[in-house]
């Protein structure tokens, strides 16, 4: 194991020397962000190698207007909100799902199947499933929608906040002031989409993409592989997470996503409108779409003044550069979503990344 670490470190050092300038590698997965901090990887890296935490936490990239729509729905007597636990603490205009007076209307579920069951058990209520997450979570939503259609569970619907990773990477690289040299690509999203999906980033933007798992050695070797490519002036797609990631991915899951959803332009917190980056239910399933059922507006909401989560998500600033960080914004009383989510960049910095003060 030590030999593998030394090899990766040599590759990193060589790339830093060769490039003669700081190297910025972005990880686009909240689980990578947390693992990097928890395992103390940052301090072991060469000074000129910087890790940027990108828009890899689904809770964090969900636009404010989505949260506000949920809070409005939670106030209705005829609705039950079924949500993954990650979403309940995200603050909106009027509190969060957790602090709502009407919180009895909010139920935490572990899967889309539980949400569908909730609809079957409560035929006099409309169950709105909080469908957030990237390509890993989207197929689970699609299965539930297909089942609801097949079984005629008409009091079930979803508010789709599903997002696609590759269009977000494209969006970041299309910004003029971006500073990203390469991507450490998400492990379990890639189980679904396959590492071949990153080819358009490599070909269109010349940025190396390496898929790695979540254990420290995987991450270190992934960074080594990226540095080797940078030093050689190459940009290719590579997966070192060979245990579960294939080039083509889980084609059954891709097919089910494709049957239910189509890619649509959509808003991301911090990144704004990104072309074909979100998943919207297809017309044939539109009766399960909460947006249509409740006539919800999809205009982006203004972020709270002072919160800089948007810039954090683009890798433009580090959390301590935000005035609210550690002061008014802490995990116990979070202002922005990057502090709320346990996989958020600000929460990870708060927990692991602060300098010890005596």
């Amino acid at each position, binding site marked *: 194991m030590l030999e593998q670490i030394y090899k990766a470190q040599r590759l990193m050092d060589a790339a830093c020397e060769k490039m003669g300038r700081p190297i910025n590698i972005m990880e686009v*997965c*909240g*689980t990578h962000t947390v693992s990097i901090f*928890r395992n103390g990887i940052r301090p072991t890296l060469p000074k000129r190698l910087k890790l940027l935490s990108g828009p*890899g*936490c*689904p*809770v964090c990239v969900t636009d404010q207007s989505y949260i506000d729509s949920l809070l409005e729905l939670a106030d209705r007597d005829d609705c039950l909100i079924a949500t*993954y636990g*990650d979403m309940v603490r995200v603050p909106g205009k009027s509190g969060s799902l957790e602090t709502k007076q009407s919180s009895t209307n909010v139920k935490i579920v*572990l*899967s*889309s*199947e*539980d949400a569908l069951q909730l609809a079957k058990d409560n035929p006099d209520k409309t169950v709105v499933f909080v469908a*957030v*997450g*990237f390509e*890993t*979570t989207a*197929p*689970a939503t699609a*299965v539930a929608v297909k089942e609801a259609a097949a079984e005629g569970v008409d009091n079930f619907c979803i508010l789709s906040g599903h997002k696609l990773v590759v269009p977000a990477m494209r969006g970041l690289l299309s910004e003029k002031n971006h500073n990203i040299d390469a991507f450490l690509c*998400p*492990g*379990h*999203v890639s*189980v*679904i989409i396959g590492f071949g999906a990153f080819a358009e980033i490599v070909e269109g933007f010349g940025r190396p993409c390496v898929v790695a798992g*979540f*254990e420290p050695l995987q991450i270190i070797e992934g960074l080594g592989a990226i540095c080797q490519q940078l030093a050689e002036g190459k940009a290719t797609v590579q997966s070192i997470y060979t*245990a*579960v990631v294939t080039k083509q991915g*889980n084609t*059954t*899951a891709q097919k*089910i996503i494709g049957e239910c959803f189509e890619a649509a332009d959509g808003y991301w917190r911090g990144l704004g409108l990104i072309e074909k980056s979100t998943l919207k239910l297809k017309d044939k399933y539109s009766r399960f779409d909460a947006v249509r059922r409740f006539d919800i507006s999809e205009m982006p909401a203004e972020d709270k003044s002072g919160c800089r989560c948007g810039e954090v998500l683009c890798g433009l600033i580090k959390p301590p550069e935000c005035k609210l960080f550690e002061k008014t914004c802490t995990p116990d009383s979070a202002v922005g979503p990057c502090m709320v*989510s346990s*996989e958020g960049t600000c929460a990870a910095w708060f927990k692991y990344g602060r300098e010890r003060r005596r």
Partner: protein
Amino acid sequence: MCLAIPARIVELEGDRAVVDAMGNRWKAKTTLLPDAKLGDLVLIHAGFAISLVDEEEAKKTWQLIAEINDFRDTPNKVSG
């Protein structure tokens, strides 16, 4: 959110399964992995099996989870 947990299929009827990881059992579905069989080790995400996984890889992840639990249960291990 996108972290999947390795677990073994210990019951399977159609696409409805019961899975086991480190002695914890819960319900999951194999709709997205139609070839999954009883006894297979799979990655579970949000109630669905998304991939087969081998024994060695599963053990690594379970070990990682166990270490995190140990760490959490030990007071003042690093804070001093």
